[in-house]
């Protein structure tokens, strides 16, 4: 279902064209329009509240892309991705706050960009460490080891040890002005938005390019039938671990980028709930990179709309605001169940159908 039917009169004449991103002028125009909207129109028009919602969507999408890479492209089911996001966030914060940076790097504002890169690599390696059991096990057992990764990393190492560095108790506070890229201090929602959207676009480009190389095809082969893939000469262990690395890398980027949005960092930002939430996002979104993005838009928007509905209702029943977190849990649980039962292929499948309908119009196939 990754292939979209081309409109009448468009043919691929060579392999490069077949693998191209923007296959027709219409698609090219559409994507450029999308980038224009995302980079110019949204920052100009959206108010602070909606920008923060957009940041939330971006963060969810970055996390969900990593999960999509593991579950959707290599069939490695993970329920512990928040651990890797947390490792990214903590590495970045520790580097900014504690590392003795040379003077010129701080004045040039390079500390945070470098820390994002380092955080991504550290999170990737951490992810490989907990991906090691995938050499021997898969399916349900792999779920259990990734769950163990979550509990060991977040509930034990980060809560009990890393948080105590500096002796300030549970949270690292990030004083305003510490997070700086070049001359810009990332302090407003608008600046966080630009950081977020840039990283998101870069990550999507990285993933889309990776998926059409030998590596991406090897992952898909392993997902579809790992024993057959092995007989074709694909080293399963190497590619699975590579998949864990890239997924952790993306998770690290997500974590490091989310730090810019926080005043203080504590392990409570990365509960097991968040890992499950990310898996729920890609289940609702469906297959592919667009699935992860649609899923995050859908989930974050639904939760925001629920919240907006709750505020007027609170006039009649004030306690609803206290109960809102619980209602959110219930809504999320029911949404996952309903999507899996009634729409197992997710939102991106519907989007694919709509695209095909317009490409093939006025014919039905």
């Amino acid at each position, binding site marked *: 279902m990754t292939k979209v039917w081309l409109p009448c009169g468009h043919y691929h004449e060579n392999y490069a064209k077949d693998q191209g991103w923007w296959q027709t002028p219409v698609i090219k125009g559409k994507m450029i329009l999308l980038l224009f909207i995302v980079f110019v129109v949204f920052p100009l028009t959206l108010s602070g509240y909606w920008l923060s919602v957009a940041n939330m969507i971006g963060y969810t999408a970055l996390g969900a892309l990593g999960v999509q890479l593991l579950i959707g492209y290599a069939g490695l089911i993970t329920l512990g991705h928040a651990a890797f996001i947390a490792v990214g966030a903590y590495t970045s914060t520790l580097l900014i706050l504690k590392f003795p940076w040379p003077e010129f790097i701080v004045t040039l504002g390079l500390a945070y960009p470098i820390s994002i890169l380092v955080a991504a690599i550290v999170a990737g390696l951490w992810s490989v460490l907990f991906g090691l059991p995938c050499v021997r096990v898969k399916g349900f*057992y792999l779920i*259990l080891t990734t769950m163990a990764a979550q509990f060991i990393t977040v509930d034990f190492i980060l809560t*009990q040890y890393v948080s105590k560095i500096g002796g300030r108790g549970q949270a690292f506070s990030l004083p305003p002005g510490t997070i700086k890229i070049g001359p810009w201090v990332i302090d407003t929602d608008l600046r966080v938005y630009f950081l977020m959207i840039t990283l998101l676009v870069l990550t999507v480009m990285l993933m889309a390019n990776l998926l059409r190389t030998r590596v991406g095809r090897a992952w898909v082969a392993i997902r579809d039938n790992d024993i057959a893939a092995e007989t074709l000469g694909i080293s399963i262990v190497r590619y699975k671990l590579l998949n864990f690395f890239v997924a952790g890398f993306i998770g690290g980027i997500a974590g490091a980028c989310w730090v810019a949005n926080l005043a203080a960092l504590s392990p409570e930002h990365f509960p097991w709930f968040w890992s499950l939430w990310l898996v729920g996002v890609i*289940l609702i979104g469906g297959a592919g990179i667009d699935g992860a993005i649609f899923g995050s838009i859908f989930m974050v928007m639904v939760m925001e709309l629920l919240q907006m509905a709750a505020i007027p209702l609170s006039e009649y029943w004030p306690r609803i605001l206290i109960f809102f977190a619980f209602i959110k849990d219930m809504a999320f649980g029911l949404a996952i169940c309903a999507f*899996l039962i009634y729409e*197992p292929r997710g939102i991106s499948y519907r989007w694919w159908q709509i695209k095909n309908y317009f490409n093939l119009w006025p014919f039905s196939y």
Partner: protein
Amino acid sequence: MELFLMTLTTGIMVGGIYALVALGWVLIYKCSGVLNLAMGELTLFGAYTTLSFYMLGIPFILSILCTLIIGIILGILVERIFLDRLIGEPILAVIMVTVGLSFFFKGLIEFIWGTDTRVFTPAIFSLKPFTIGFLKISTVYFWSFVLAIVLFLIFVAFFKYTRWGLSMQATADDETAALSLGVSARFVYAASWAIAFMAAGVGGALLGNINGVNISVGYLGLLVLPAVVLGGLNSVPGAVVGGITIGVLQNFAGTYLDAFFPGGVKEIFPFAFMAIFLLFMPYGLWGWIKIERM
């Protein structure tokens, strides 16, 4: 030495409760192939239901019976509404439906009962420990263990000697053959969920007696996962051994490792143990080894 024996007995007693919950998990897996991640919330649900009945003035044993009945109803409802439609779907879909259910139940429980810790008042078991030889055993642990073992034996006897239990065993063994002999698979699925709800509910009620009832009882219910991995996913004796071993290991970690790794080593140790164990024996002690072919 005394500390060692005390830790061991406490571990075995708590492990008995884990074994009871693990039995429910294994039953679901054996009969319907569903890997259930909602076990923690089921335990929590049982704990709160029993607590509510007890607070109404109903004696403890009767409240547990009421919890069992509510467990049956809920188990059948959940199976009929959600799991029944997913027979034959890929493993991720089924697992994630149980995750969705766990969210739903967690939200529901917090919605109904709030997030504060609640204690069984008046206390059911006396606070005075009683002594066997030189061993001091807390009364709560002892009676919880006894009750867990009794219920466990009842479940196993049901499984082994009654007509319904035998039909469940047949389905677990070979679904097609059981269907051809007139066993209703849908009945068996519903029954396995009902039993799992009952086992988890009673387990939760007993665990709630130890430290009071709050969300962390649900976390204790999750410990069933290391237990079943240790014993093998589809082995009932494995569930017992796994549950008790996890209880013992957890208490030993709390007693001896806490000096080296201060903090929550007791909570985390079963999961760390599980991750390492999976590297060496992925199918557990008595699980069936799956041989894969192309």
